[in-house]
């Protein structure tokens, strides 16, 4: 079932002025419940404007945004509820931490939802567990934590609201490789437990390849494509043409194909590349002794 849909969504900044710019141009898409989606597009492609429509931070100039089949702007009074159901984690969310303790910071959203203490506690503990924040840390000041820990606390604060749709804008920006892997792993834990829909904006194709069921690509305010991960990577040259990067390994297998070594499959992770190569080498029977 579709959880989030847009119909001909269009948004124009500074309409009627010389700076008028259409940032989202007639975008129609449908996201299924429980999907994990990667969102890509270079700076200025319209992807941030698009995701800000998903929880009603921006109102379409024309077209509609549907959550659970209902137009989120049908009743303006209810837009606050939409924001509880579609959680948005901004870039560098660690700068938005303000509470005295980690526990209070994670509990802030659920509290605003008017939940009772027992339910708030359950949610804080469960999300802290998903995101890898140990219980000892919960009573500490968030400002004593490392940058990576702070970021995880900030993400947990939105997760604890258990939104039907969780959107993260570049959650791994500025982290080292181990930090990147860890955050993505924790987001996967949360997904496994809650089965909620997740959208992750990322510039790193390597990261997106590791989690996404489908990839949504924006270019020049339009939906460039929205398809299964394999299919998107099979269009590697077009993707590079709109200023994005494909994984290095995908480029290598593209060249191999042109040089006559075709595995008949799209390759976008090192693990899969290894599997394919080892199988093909075994069939060839050329294992050298070394």
């Amino acid at each position: 079932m579709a959880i989030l849909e847009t119909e001909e969504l269009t948004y124009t900044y500074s309409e009627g002025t010389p700076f008028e710019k259409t940032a989202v141009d007639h975008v129609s898409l449908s996201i299924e419940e429980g999907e994990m989606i990667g969102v890509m597009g270079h700076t200025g492609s319209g992807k941030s404007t698009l995701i800000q429509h998903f929880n009603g931070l921006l109102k379409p100039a024309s077209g509609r945004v549907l959550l659970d089949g209902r137009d989120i702007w049908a009743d303006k009074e209810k837009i606050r509820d939409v924001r509880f159901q579609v959680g948005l984690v901004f870039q560098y969310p660690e700068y938005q931490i303000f509470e005295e303790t980690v526990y209070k910071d994670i509990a802030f959203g659920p509290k605003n939802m008017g939940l009772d203490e027992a339910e708030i506690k359950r949610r804080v503990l469960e999300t802290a567990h998903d995101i890898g924040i140990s219980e000892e840390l919960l009573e500490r000041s968030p400002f004593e934590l490392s940058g990576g820990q702070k970021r995880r606390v900030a993400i947990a604060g939105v997760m604890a609201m258990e939104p039907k749709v969780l959107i993260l804008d570049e959650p791994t920006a500025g982290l080292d490789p181990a930090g990147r892997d860890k955050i993505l792993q924790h987001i996967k834990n949360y997904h496994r437990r809650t089965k909620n829909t997740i959208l992750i904006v990322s510039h790193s194709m390597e990261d997106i390849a590791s989690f996404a069921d489908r990839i949504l690509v924006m270019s020049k305010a339009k939906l460039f494509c929205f398809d299964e991960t394999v299919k998107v990577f099979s269009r590697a040259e077009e993707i590079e043409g709109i200023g994005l990067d494909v994984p290095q390994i995908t480029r290598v297998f593209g060249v191999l194909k042109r040089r006559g070594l075709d595995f008949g499959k799209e390759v976008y992770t090192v693990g899969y590349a290894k599997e394919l190569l080892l199988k093909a080498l075994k069939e060839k029977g050329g294992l050298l002794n070394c």
Partner: protein
Amino acid sequence: MENIIEIENLHFSYASEDEKEAAPEVLKGIDLTIKSGEFVAVLGHNGSGKSTLAKHMNAILLPTSGKVTVDGIDTADEERIFELRQSAGMVFQNPDNQIVSSIVEEDVAFALENLGVPYEEMRRRVDEALKDVGMYEYRMHSPSQLSGGQKQRVAIAGIIAMCPKCIILDEPTAMLDPKGRKEVMATIKRMNREHGITIVLITHYMDEAAQCGRIVVMDKGRTVLDDVPEKVFSQVEKLKSIGLDVPQVTELVWELRKAGYDVPAEIITENDCVEAILKLFE
């Protein structure tokens, strides 16, 4: 070739809030020399001390003990600090934090004005610097209209205008998209090649480090590897154990070697990886 940066037994701790307790050491005895004209990447996980090290090359931080010399100037010599910062410029991560003017060319001229460079000379250097980074046609724009990659190039132009011998860049591409990253990398590579400017690039991106001439890897306040990219990245297990990664092609080749296939360990480029795989299937 002469050494542009010399670091001897550098120890550093940030000031302790509690006077009774000694602050933990962030840098624990670094010895490093960088030759004039080198292009060096510094890798390390968050908290490894790499940014702290970078800030010593520009006298933003001074050693707790040990000595740092840049272009023959001891960074602890307060008298010569401006001279030092002219020969070693620094570019930071966030482009928005280092732009001061509302017009691109004024921003590039900022430091020259402070130094009292005569108008004609300043005009020439600003124009040249903007051409060097490919931003000349944007000289009358407001920086707020620029992309992150363009802003970083303006920041680099501001430094080039001072005719430095060395540029230290602390994760200059961390906040940029792939296109912006490529623009910035191409710019600094050109500065190195065409003007012979020494580059020290602090980065989290292995593909950027793979383009440098030399990689210094930091862990827990020490340098643990220091070699050409091929040699450094061939140490896959060691790098992974300290929270770093290797380029995907290096990892694939390493996996093939583990499975018993005879492929070279020191592969860091896509071309070499393609050739190695094709050879296996010959």
